[in-house]
């Protein structure tokens, strides 16, 4: 028995979401009286033994370049083999792009019940019950998993990272890999920006900014906060901002610690993509804007006056000249 935690990597580094599931998986292992072990696929340049400080006793690696791209079919066979070799009874993923591509497929192969989009640690006092978000963050469901092996894919930003002072042993699993049937011909990374789904803080703009030429105020605020930038759907549709910034029901779903909405009315389809954010701040000149009902802090006013003051104030606080 063990809890096997499958870590996301890209560009040869472990991703931020991986530290969250390491903490989550280790706490779960302690709760059910077993060990937590991590699985790393592909070539990774990080110090894997140091992952012990997140609570795992072993790190298993399948060190092959062919795993640097996520091919769900190849990943699934490899992970299922690792599950067999480590005798895992719970497999933990992060519900990121990689998790969405792989976790369900692994669950089907293992005939394991899946909870995708888990929000907290399972209740194992009577069975195995996992809480997950449903209806785009408007509710939770408690799901009971009945199968012997269980697969959990945890929503990013739903648990905090806990560190101890352990180290882990690192070993290479010997698993025969199939050839991938997917031929990757191009990878286009968005450079120089903080990927939206990983950002701790997101500053987002709507039609209230009036036009693409006005985005400077928003970008300045994002810069002092080290924030990712997002927009509402009409802004993306009008090409004021790139499509990948569009958040909401039809766009990207984000769950940062802080979401700052500038000139966004707060339509239900917009909220569906952002309402798992921990703290939401709204700047809107219309006191009746629906966003105020969902937000934690708000100012009724003209964003073009307020946002530069926010930026200046944060600079002062952070001691930035």
């Amino acid at each position, binding site marked *: 028995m063990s809890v096997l935690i499958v870590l*996301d990597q*890209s560009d040869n580094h472990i*991703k931020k979401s991986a530290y969250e599931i390491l903490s989550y998986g280790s706490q779960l292992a302690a709760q059910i009286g077993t060990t937590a072990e991590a699985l790393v696929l592909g070539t990774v340049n990080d110090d894997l033994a140091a992952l012990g400080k997140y609570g795992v006793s072993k790190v298993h690696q399948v060190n092959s370049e062919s795993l640097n791209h*996520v*091919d*769900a079919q190849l990943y*699934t066979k490899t992970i299922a083999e690792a599950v067999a070799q480590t005798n895992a009874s719970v497999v933990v993923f992060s*519900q990121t*792009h*990689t998790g*969405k*591509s792989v*976790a*369900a*497929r692994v669950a*089907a192969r293992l*005939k394991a019940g*899946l909870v995708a*989009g888990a929000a907290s640690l399972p209740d194992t006092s009577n069975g195995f019950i996992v809480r997950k*978000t*449903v*209806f*785009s963050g*408007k*509710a*939770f*469901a*408690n*799901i*009971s*998993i*009945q199968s012997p092996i269980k697969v959990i894919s945890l929503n990013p930003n739903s648990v905090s990272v806990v560190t101890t002072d352990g180290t882990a042993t690192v070993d290479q699993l010997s698993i025969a890999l199939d050839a991938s*049937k*997917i*031929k*990757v*011909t*191009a*990878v*286009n990374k*968005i450079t120089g920006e903080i*990927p939206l789904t*990983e950002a701790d803080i997101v500053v987002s703009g709507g039609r209230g900014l009036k036009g693409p030429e006005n985005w400077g105020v928003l970008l300045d605020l994002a810069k002092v*906060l080290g924030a990712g930038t997002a927009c509402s759907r009409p802004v993306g549709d009008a090409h004021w901002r790139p499509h990948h910034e569009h958040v909401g*029901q039809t*766009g990207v779903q984000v769950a940062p*610690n802080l979401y700052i909405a500038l000139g966004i009315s707060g339509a239900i389809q917009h909220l569906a993509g952002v309402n798992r954010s921990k*703290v939401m*701040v709204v700047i809107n000149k219309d006191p009746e804007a629906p966003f*105020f009902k*969902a937000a*934690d*802090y*708000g*100012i*009724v006013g003209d964003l073009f006056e*307020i946002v530069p003051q*926010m930026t200046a*104030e944060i600079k002062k*606080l952070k001691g930035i000249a």
Partner: protein
Amino acid sequence: MKILVCVSKTPDTTSKIAFKESNTQFEEAGVQWIINPYDEWFALVRAIELKEKDPSIIIHLVTVGGADCDPIIRKALALGGDEAFRINADSNDSFFIAAQIAEIAKQNQYDLIFTGKEAIDYNSAAIGGMISELVDMPYVSLATLFELNGTTATITREIEGGEEVAEISLPVVVSCQKGMAEQRIPNMRGIMAARTKPLKVVEPAAIDTLTSIVNFELPPAKAGCKMVAADNVPELIRLLHEEAKAF
């Protein structure tokens, strides 16, 4: 060439989310049902566009659900599906649903299977990946572009921090999202034609259910929005920093 498009019935996004029977069931009263937007706008419409280029393509639709799904299946037929299967079973377990669809897929040997990126009710993004495993095909999730060249597909998909373009020989299972196609409205001719298109009701195969919903919870009510005066921006920043510890 045969394409299978998986469609599911979901509450309209503006529906009020409430529960009944001690929070064990979704309150359906007053809910407007729609085709899951990702299935309709992106998976189905892209399949229809492929058929418009190559009329020999046949589009099958499949849904796992009760008779209350028929109106959304008829709408999907009106948009442009050729024939539909409804597997007559109500379940929330992803494995059960995927395994039922995999049975249909095995019988009909599709070149392409399209799903939406996720169902907007339970948000699992799971069915496509599960089907692909059960029928042993490659799987491309979160696709934003799909081009067909003979029996090779060129697919762009979202990955962490960017996108990836790949070539794959059919068959393949693809989960579809924004970018794949543009939303359409069914026309009168389509609506008329849909009435006579076959909608086959199939009894479910014997498949285990691996999970079940114990109950639902609504998130705790927000404390309400703390309003700060427009001439007191420093107070907002102080609250965010000290009270909310947001940065």
